[in-house]
């Protein structure tokens, strides 16, 4: 009897552990120590990419049809377990209403469709690679999508001088982890294609930690008191693009959206 009870408790505890593990799938491999750069810092240089469906929806979601009829299965939405700790975003009621409106009108409103800069953290888990170029004073994150660029100031740190799409990032090392603190956002970027959004009060803290030679642990804390009732976290692994010839290529998408944005202003054939 007593033994059985213990077993049941253990099962429950294990189940809780598994649930937590699912929420934080990328928990750092204990004890992994990244190779050092010549200056002694963990070397995070490389070309990285997320492999998940967070760009469709950072919350858990089922597979869904393409919002564009002609694209059929090619434009359909793959399901995802979600990357949010706790599963659901803590919107305040007004913001939740706006998220739902965004979602209903996403073909008109999603900044990605217009080739606008992706914002943070969305840039990191879009289905395009990005490269970390790690130097001492500055660490650059160069994204293939729209050629978006972030400068992480490891030295000469200041407050954000103005609001911007990609924000103003100051970084620091905490042991194995590169911690990037970003503020100074405008309120125009989204978190995904499902209308999840933020305001200009967004504050993002990202933690990049090597978890093996070819994977990083990416953890993000998001604060935005105008939109969310409390800070929330997301996490995911990032994978190294290990192809010998891997490189960031151009995805200069402006010309791909010009007819979408300005086609109605084209000169009409004279009647």
């Amino acid at each position: 009897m007593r033994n059985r009870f213990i077993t049941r408790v253990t099962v429950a505890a294990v189940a809780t552990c598994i649930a937590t593990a699912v929420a934080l799938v990328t928990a750092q491999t204990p004890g992994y120590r990244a190779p050092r750069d010549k200056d002694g810092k963990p070397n995070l240089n490389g070309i990285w990419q997320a492999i998940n469906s967070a760009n469709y929806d950072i919350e858990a979601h089922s597979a869904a049809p393409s919002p564009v009829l002609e694209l059929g299965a090619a434009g359909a939405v793959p399901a995802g377990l979600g990357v949010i700790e706790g599963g659901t975003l803590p919107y305040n009621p007004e913001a939740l209403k706006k998220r739902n409106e965004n979602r209903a009108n996403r073909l008109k409103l999603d900044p990605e469709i217009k080739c606008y800069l992706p914002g943070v953290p969305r840039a990191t888990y879009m289905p395009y690679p990005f490269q970390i170029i790690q130097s001492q004073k500055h660490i650059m994150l160069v994204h293939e999508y729209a050629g978006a660029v972030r400068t992480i100031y490891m030295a000469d740190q200041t407050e954000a001088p103005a609001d911007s799409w990609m924000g103003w990032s100051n970084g620091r090392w905490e042991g194995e982890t590169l911690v990037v603190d970003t503020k100074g956002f405008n309120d125009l970027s989204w978190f995904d294609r499902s209308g999840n959004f933020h305001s200009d009060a967004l504050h993002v803290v990202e933690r990049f930690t090597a978890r093996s030679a070819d994977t990083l642990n990416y953890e993000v804390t998001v604060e935005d008191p105008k939109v969310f009732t409390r800070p929330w976290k997301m996490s995911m692994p990032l994978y190294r693009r290990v192809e010998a010839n891997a490189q960031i290529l151009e995805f200069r998408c402006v010309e791909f959206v010009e007819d979408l944005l300005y086609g109605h202003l084209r000169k009409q054939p004279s009647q």
Partner: protein
Amino acid sequence: MNRRSLVSIGALVLGVGVLSASLVAQQVATPLAKPAPAAKAAAPTGKPYTPPTTPDGQPDLQGFWTNSTYVPLERPQGVTKEYYTPAEAEAAINAAADREAEQTEPGTTADVHYDFSQFGLDRSQSKFAASLRTSLIIDPPDGKMPPVNAQGQKRAADRAAARKQAGGQYDSVQNMPIGSRCIIMGGSGPPMMNAGYNANYQIVQAPGYVMILTEMIHDARIIPLDNRAQASQGVRQWTGLSRGRWEGNTLVVETTNFNGKNPFRGASENLKVTERFTRTADDMIDYKFTVEDPATWDRAWTAEAPLAKTDGPIFEFACHETNYGIPNILAGARAEEKAKAEQAKKGSN
């Protein structure tokens, strides 16, 4: 921008160069037409400059740089020498600065489009690379681009015909200039040419890579240094594909695989650009580029467009995201057509 302060800025920049034999004198000291090895780009003391190195041992080119300059690509009509005297250079800068000032002061030209002093269009207000050179082109020795060959002339005519076929500039967004459309601006290159304004760059190096961020439209060019083979001709880009290597203290970058949609000086998509970056002082990178395209010019040509150290940081240049110009111009053109059509209709009644 007032004229008097322009003179003093010009005089100051040149004065500093002459008196301390730093910037300007150094340009003079740089050897002439043939590409100069790093060691010969002598520092004022006459000793070769040794650039600092990054922790992984690369010569350190990092920091914020500008290639803003008053030196024209081609030697002006009537000028036959390679270098101005300091007095002549000052006069040339002041004449150019005067033309910019004209665009600024209300009433000096019929159409003041921008206030140059407000939007950084007045180059004299920012750091620029002072030089006594009369042209950026150093080879051919006459300072002019070689003549365009028959194949190049035919391509230019074909392109002009295609533009004519596509209609007026304001008929559709695709007929408008690539820069106005926020696709790419002149500074990105390669070759990196001064873009007229915001001619700022940031260089960051990591083991195996040099990254050059162009301020205009946040263009980051990542140059691998691992001697990898050039990519298949099947992948072509606005800025081509660059491959780099260190030759002593000189970063040599070769770029091909252009898409031909933003042809540099009328070049074909088979253009090859070879750039050479050599840090010759704490505040100066000697930058030379050689352009080869037998489908356009019968000979290669080379220019020198130094990068001068400037202050950071570089801010986000979100060009496309707030490109109100395109829809407003196109809407204006459509409104004008509509008004004309209505007037014509009225007239015929």
